């Protein structure tokens, strides 16, 4: 058995919270019954396919669709002309923001194709085979332009410009000429210059990272059915069906009420399914043909044209006193946005030093466009990139000062009252407790095997709240349905049902959690930002409380007493105050049976904008060895600790830590987008884009440190994103300690690592 440590802060306080029951959708998901995006079909449906640009950067001079349309079995062909242009309007997508003007150009290239794989046309035909034939008959006249892939190159004067309208926002002096630098941001605290002047030790280092993909196993898929009266139904694998509705309403120019989006089960997203790609195309094709249109992406399309997380360049400088106290820190991040502005450079900057209490900080960030697919969110977007650089530099500092890496971090750890460089002052947080948990772990106390290296790194993520709606219904027999609107991407049905059962005082199995479509529940923001168990959980709790209030009114009516004199306890209404013991308690079933006579159905509902998300901190520790000849890394032991608030369903919290850690290990060791000289992606498949497999990994041990969030009734903190922040640097630090070679470029893949080992060989031999 893998070692999993849970340190509950709520021992004995709860009946259901903190237990590990079967998830409500478990049977469906182990039998193949659960229906994911590509599993939906309608009678008479057409198959939609996308024609994608073969060029990284090209003007679209003309598109001739006549031959494709003439092919038997082809029902419609669409291009950008089939979508109204959009205003310069910023809208939120999960934790990132996008411009409507850009979204419509990303779903279908308008003036120019901006990356290889950029959609330029789409067809709907009676079969996939016919649709593919039709794509080959569409004639696009391109004028190929010089392209730019690399961020540093894209920032240089004279680089090929992607958008003639793009002037650097935040530039000083104000920009007057178009640039690929969409935005410059900075965060300041204290006086970094003075801090560095005072420092006894200064470490400075430059790092690079490559674009990586979220790597969800389920490709994007959608089915749209538009009726003649303008109503449209959509089934889509998405992290936010309300987001799909909102975006598509704008992109198609129809009311949101005309569009009903049903979320299918979702086969992974990690942030990459918070935007739209196929949905507006399928809807438009369905409008044009009057038939349902199904569209799916091939894996190659997923890599070329959806989601990646950005790569970037990071400069870090840390100044400290000899006792380890950090007195100044600086971080400069240049980040890929892809073809349109909007990289997560903001959060990358804000998270960079958030683990530490530092007096003098300067952070600067650049959002840079280049001829790559538009980046999407990926689990703590931006944070792993700056953390890789900062936490590697922290390790160098620990080595320089000959300090234990955890002690160095403990000396500088952020606590309640610490003011971050981005202005927020922390409430109750668990950075110290999490560091201490790793320090006290059996793993950290065990000796490092000869020839192996042990790396430690920390990470931070804000977590978010935002808009959630929920409803609770009592059935005629007293069992309960809890309705919310966030796709369940990793067991959230279980956590919502556990909180509802706890609140209501009924058996977990009496509560059925349902995820409703956009027409059947109020607005819910995306499943993202580690928000569902926290924010939608709060909406569920409030909806249950609303229902309990009504249940007490009904009991009072039956007993002919004041509702104030009724309490709700263990799933029953009981008379209280001077009425104690006057009447037999009434159960949910009793009250449900009499509902018709006491005022009708008994429901509760809640809708709120949730604030007070508790930030999370993670500390990871990894033991590994490096093959001196091949540069291949073997990870031997891994422990992930995190302040998780309250672990509502500990197994799924552990799962978040384990999954995030492994994605981070992949990011560290193997994953990268590789472009050739023509700006074409060379590894758009799982064979050449190498994600971790079971045999690459050891057990992933977890330590759940419960530091409850004071701003949630059950102390919930988001847990999903933090775990991907520390692993990259933890791996790099372990490699440095195993080999004496400090890697600064990702991924630390066998070719890159063996080259670094070769280069360092004379020095390493001299050292021996």
């Amino acid at each position, binding site marked *: 058995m893998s070692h999993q440590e849970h340190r509950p802060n709520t021992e004995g306080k709860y009946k259901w919270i903190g237990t590990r029951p079967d998830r409500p959708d478990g049977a469906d998901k182990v039998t193949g019954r659960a229906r994911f995006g590509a599993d939906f079909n309608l009678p008479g449906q057409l198959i939609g396919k996308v024609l994608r640009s073969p060029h990284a950067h090209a003007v679209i001079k003309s598109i001739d669709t006549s031959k494709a349309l003439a092919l038997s079995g082809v029902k419609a062909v669409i291009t950008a002309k089939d979508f109204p242009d959009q205003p310069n309007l910023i809208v939120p997508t999960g934790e990132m923001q996008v411009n409507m003007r850009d979204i419509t150009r990303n779903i279908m290239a308008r003036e120019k194709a901006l990356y290889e794989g950029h959609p330029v046309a789409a067809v709907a035909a009676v079969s996939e085979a016919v649709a593919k034939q039709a794509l080959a008959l569409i004639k696009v006249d391109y004028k190929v332009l010089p392209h730019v892939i690399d961020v540093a190159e894209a920032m240089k004067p004279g680089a090929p410009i992607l958008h003639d309208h793009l002037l650097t926002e935040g530039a000083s002096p104000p920009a007057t000429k178009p640039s690929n630098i969409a935005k410059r941001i900075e965060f300041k605290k204290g006086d970094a210059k003075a801090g560095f002047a005072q420092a006894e030790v200064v470490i400075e280092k430059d790092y690079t990272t490559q674009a990586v993909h979220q790597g969800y196993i389920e490709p994007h898929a959608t089915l749209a059915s538009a009726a003649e009266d303008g109503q449209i139904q959509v089934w889509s694998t998405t992290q936010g069906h309300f987001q799909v509705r909102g975006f598509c309403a704008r992109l198609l120019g129809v009311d949101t009420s005309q569009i009903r989006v049903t979320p299918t089960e979702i086969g992974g997203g990690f942030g990459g399914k918070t935007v739209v790609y196929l949905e507006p195309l399928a809807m438009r094709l369905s409008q044009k043909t009057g038939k349902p249109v199904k569209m799916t992406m091939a894996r190659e399309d997923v890599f070329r044209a959806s989601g990646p997380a950005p790569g970037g360049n990071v400069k870090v400088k840390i100044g400290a006193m000899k006792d380890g106290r950090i007195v100044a820190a600086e971080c400069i991040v240049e980040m890929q946005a892809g073809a349109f502005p909007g990289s997560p450079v903001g959060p990358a900057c804000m998270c960079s030093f958030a683990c530490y209490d530092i007096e003098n900080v300067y952070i600067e960030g650049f959002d840079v466009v280049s001829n790559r697919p538009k980046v999407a969110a990926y689990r703590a977007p931006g944070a792993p990139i700056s953390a890789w650089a900062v936490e590697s530099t922290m390790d160098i500092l620990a080595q320089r000062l000959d300090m234990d890496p955890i002690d160095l971090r403990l000396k500088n750890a952020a606590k309640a009252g610490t003011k971050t460089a981005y202005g927020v002052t922390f409430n109750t947080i668990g950075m110290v407790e999490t560091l201490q948990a790793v320090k006290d772990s059996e793993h950290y106390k065990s000796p490092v095997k000869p020839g192996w290296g042990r790396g430690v790194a920390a990470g931070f993520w804000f977590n978010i709240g935002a808009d959630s709606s929920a409803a609770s219904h009592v059935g005629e027999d007293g069992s309960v349905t809890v309705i919310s609107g966030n796709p369940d*991407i*990793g067991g959230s049905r279980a956590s919502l049902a556990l909180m509802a059962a706890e609140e209501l005082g009924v058996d977990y199995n009496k509560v059925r959690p349902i995820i409703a479509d956009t027409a059947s529940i109020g607005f819910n923001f995306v499943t993202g930002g580690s928000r569902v168990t926290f924010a939608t959980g709060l909406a569920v709790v409030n909806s249950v409380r609303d229902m309990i209030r009504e249940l007490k009114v009904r009991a009072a009516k039956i007993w002919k007493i004041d509702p104030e004199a009724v309490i709700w306890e263990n799933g029953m209404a009981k008379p209280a105050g001077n009425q104690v013991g006057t009447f037999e308690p009434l159960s949910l079933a009793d009250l449900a049976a009499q509902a018709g006579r006491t005022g009708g159905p008994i429901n509760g509902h809640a809708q709120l904008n949730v604030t007070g998300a508790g930030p999370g901190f993670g500390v990871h520790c990894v033991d590994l060895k490096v093959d001196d000849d091949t540069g291949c890394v073997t990870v031997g032991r891994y422990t992930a600790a995190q302040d998780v608030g309250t672990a509502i369903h500990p197994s*799924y919290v552990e799962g978040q830590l*384990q999954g995030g850690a492994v994605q981070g290990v992949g990011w560290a060791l193997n994953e990268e987008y590789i472009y050739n000289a023509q700006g074409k992606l060379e590894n758009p498949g799982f064979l050449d884009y190498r994600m*971790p497999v079971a045999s690459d990994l050891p057990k992933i041990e977890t330590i759940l440190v419960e530091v409850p969030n004071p701003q949630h009734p059950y102390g919930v903190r988001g847990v999903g994103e933090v775990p991907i922040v520390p692993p990259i640097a933890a791996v790099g630090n372990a490699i440095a300690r195993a080999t004496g070679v400090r890697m600064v470029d990702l991924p630390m893949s066998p070719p890159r690592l063996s080259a670094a080992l070769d280069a360092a060989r004379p020095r390493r031999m001299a050292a021996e």
Partner: protein
Amino acid sequence: MAKIHVNTTINGAPTEFLCDANQTLLDVLRDNLGLTGSKEGCGSGDCGACSVTVNGRLVCSCLVLAPEAQGMKIETIEGMAQGDKLHPLQKKFVEMAALQCGICTPGFLIASKALLEKYPNPTEDEVRYWLAGNLCRCTGYDKIVTAVLDVAADMRGSAR
């Protein structure tokens, strides 16, 4: 081109279908027969989400041409539970939270069943290498491997 008539057995039931010569077994299972439990994650045999067994041998159904199913016995995720009784692997995966999103789960279950039929007493390393053809992006594999080892122990009747 004329369709090809194929006679096969799927999950114990004699099944016939018409397919194109270039159709994969996965496409026929999903599109012709409505057995959508097998998933397409890559279409190139790299992710294992479409795992089925053909005459007991574990394969990626996206790499098998449908006409090759002629006379074969195919087992898919839809045939794993017996009536209303989940297979011990299915039960354990749910109990131990060995899935998060669930898209890879049918493939892992089919692959794990094939493993335990061939090697009822695998080591952790053997489980990890056997399952290396199945990608999971959510779990980090820990709970999957633990669940398979637990079921192996249970099925051997030796409590761990």
